[in-house]
């Protein structure tokens, strides 16, 4: 099993460790996954995501290469006006094969004109690097470098994140301004010409990204592997009086499911990237169904005729269905409709008597009862052979138990990821 630079710390803290891909990772710490999930909603949570992979793409052909391999129109992707990707901004998309099926999802960061940073999932560094290299032959002037296991990555997520981070940054007033959602600053080595560095008070250089995978306000921090443990401990100590908790992969899974975010190789995978809640990962289409940019897999998606539909759901109580060969989705009469992709429990939400979903983060003005105690709701994604509308119900079953769930447009209300930074510092 591979380990991250924080592995010894996790074990020392008594984390429940389990294999995740090639790595042994913490599922939860002694506080438990429920408290960790709630900490991210109310205060802040710290995640070791060093198993994820950074790849650099450099050279005059870098942008052309990424445009070819990544599912975005890099000239029309930022904000409601669909502006071009520029230095200091990042976009989410997928890497597809020629059949329009998902190899992995990831973020592309434009650092400089000729320097891009790509972040993909655990174990995918080699595969995505190979995919980029194969196509770089056409571009000739781009170099691809797989940084697997050379970087540390810490995600600090939750409404207190900026306040905690501010205490350890060398220049917080300067760094924590003009940093909208999906923007970033700095680089994880000391000097890159043209990049304004972001440093901690102790001098550690960071790539600080206003992103995350919980649906909540926060940052992802990339840094040199050997500096990870020190920064991790610093954040925990500094954030202790603001309720920060170290969080494992279980909380990450329940938070991202409630935020309607897919887990690569589970909710998206070797089937066409279509008819799912994540089509924002693709360029806009014209009236004829053509994308505004071409990329690997775009033609297959343009020609795809829908056969399967991936939909988000939320249950009526915390009960889940374990995904196995026996589990499936059915209608009220037991007729098979499809499969369960993800089933987790979002511990911060509950339903009011009229069925409305309310989160701990919902304000009283927006309908959260003063005495609201979330019991949690099961939620996740199903892949069905029939398109259903939000509000319709299906049943998850393993042949024995049966749980009724509702097809939803959205799951956990009042998420904080897009809050203005100036309200959070």
């Amino acid at each position, binding site marked *: 099993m591979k380990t991250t630079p924080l592995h010894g710390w996790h074990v020392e803290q*008594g*984390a*429940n*460790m*389990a*294999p*995740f*891909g090639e790595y042994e990772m913490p*599922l*939860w710490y002694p506080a*438990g*996954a*429920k*408290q960790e999930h709630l900490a991210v909603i109310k205060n802040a949570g710290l995640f070791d995501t060093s198993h994820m992979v950074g790849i650099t793409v450099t050279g005059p052909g870098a942008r052309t290469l990424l445009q070819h391999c990544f599912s975005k129109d890099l000239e029309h992707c930022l904000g409601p006006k669909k502006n071009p990707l520029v230095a200091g901004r990042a976009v989410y998309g997928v890497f597809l094969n020629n059949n329009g099926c998902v190899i992995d999802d990831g973020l592309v960061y434009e650092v400089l004109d000729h320097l891009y940073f790509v972040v993909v999932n655990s174990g995918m560094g080699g595969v995505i690097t190979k995919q980029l290299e194969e196509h770089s032959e056409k571009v000739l002037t781009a170099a691809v470098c797989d940084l697997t296991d050379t970087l540390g990555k810490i995600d600090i997520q939750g409404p207190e994140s900026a306040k905690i981070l501010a205490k350890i940054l060398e220049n917080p007033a300067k760094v924590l301004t003009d940093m909208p959602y999906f923007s970033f600053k700095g680089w994880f080595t000391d000097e890159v010409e043209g990049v304004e560095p972001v440093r901690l008070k102790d001098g550690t250089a960071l790539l600080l990204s206003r992103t995350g995978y919980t649906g909540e306000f926060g940052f992802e921090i990339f840094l040199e592997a050997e500096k990870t443990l020190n920064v991790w401990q610093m954040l925990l100590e500094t954030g202790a009086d603001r309720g920060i908790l170290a969080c494992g*992969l*279980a909380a990450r*899974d*329940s938070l991202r499911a409630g935020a309607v975010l897919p887990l690569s*190789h*589970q909710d998206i995978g070797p089937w066409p990237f279509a008819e799912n809640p994540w089509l924002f990962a693709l360029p806009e289409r014209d009236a004829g169904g053509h994308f505004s940019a071409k990329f690997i897999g775009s033609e297959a998606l343009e020609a795809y005729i829908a056969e399967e539909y991936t939909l988000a759901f939320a249950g009526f*109580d*915390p*009960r*889940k*269905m*374990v*995904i*196995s060969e026996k589990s499936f989705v059915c209608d009220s009469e037991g007729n098979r409709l499809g499969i369960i992709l*993800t*089933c*987790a*429990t979002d*511990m911060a939400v509950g339903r009011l008597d009229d069925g409305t979903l309310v989160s701990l983060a919902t304000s009283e003005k927006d309908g959260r009862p003063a005495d609201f105690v979330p*019991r*949690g709701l099961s939620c996740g994604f199903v892949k069905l052979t029939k398109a259903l509308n939000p509000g319709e119900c299906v049943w998850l079953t393993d042949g024995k*138990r049966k749980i009724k769930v509702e097809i939803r447009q959205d799951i956990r209300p009042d998420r904080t990821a897009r809050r203005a930074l100036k309200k959070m510092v």
Partner: protein
Amino acid sequence: MKELNELNFPDDVKYTREHEWAKIEEGNVFVGITDYAQDQLGDIVFVEMPAEGDSFEEGEEFGTLESVKAVSEIYLPVSGEILAINEALEDEPEMVNKDPYEAWIVKVKPADVSEFDNLMDKTAYLKLVESEFDSEPDSEPDSEFE
């Protein structure tokens, strides 16, 4: 995860191979899950219990525990009729984590008290848990996090 020496196994209850405990009081049997079981499951978020008056055989599934990690069946250590369920667990399932031996799940009127006597005592159960500790590195990854 707790280390073996951090786990609590009281002397005054009996144990099953599936990690339930059973305690006899005034002829009735209270049933819950052990400290080891709750530690393995992680945060328990829902306890699905039978109805009062239901009858089950020894070893039969009578409910499920939902944890953040999985859904686990709970089996009745002795045959009998459900006299009561612990309704407090409906609102506070986390009681099973906090105090597994106080958080009984069902109270059973045993059909045959000798079944209770045949359950494991602390020494036998501790051996079982020790053997599971030794074999842990072989445990399978949880499907939800693959």
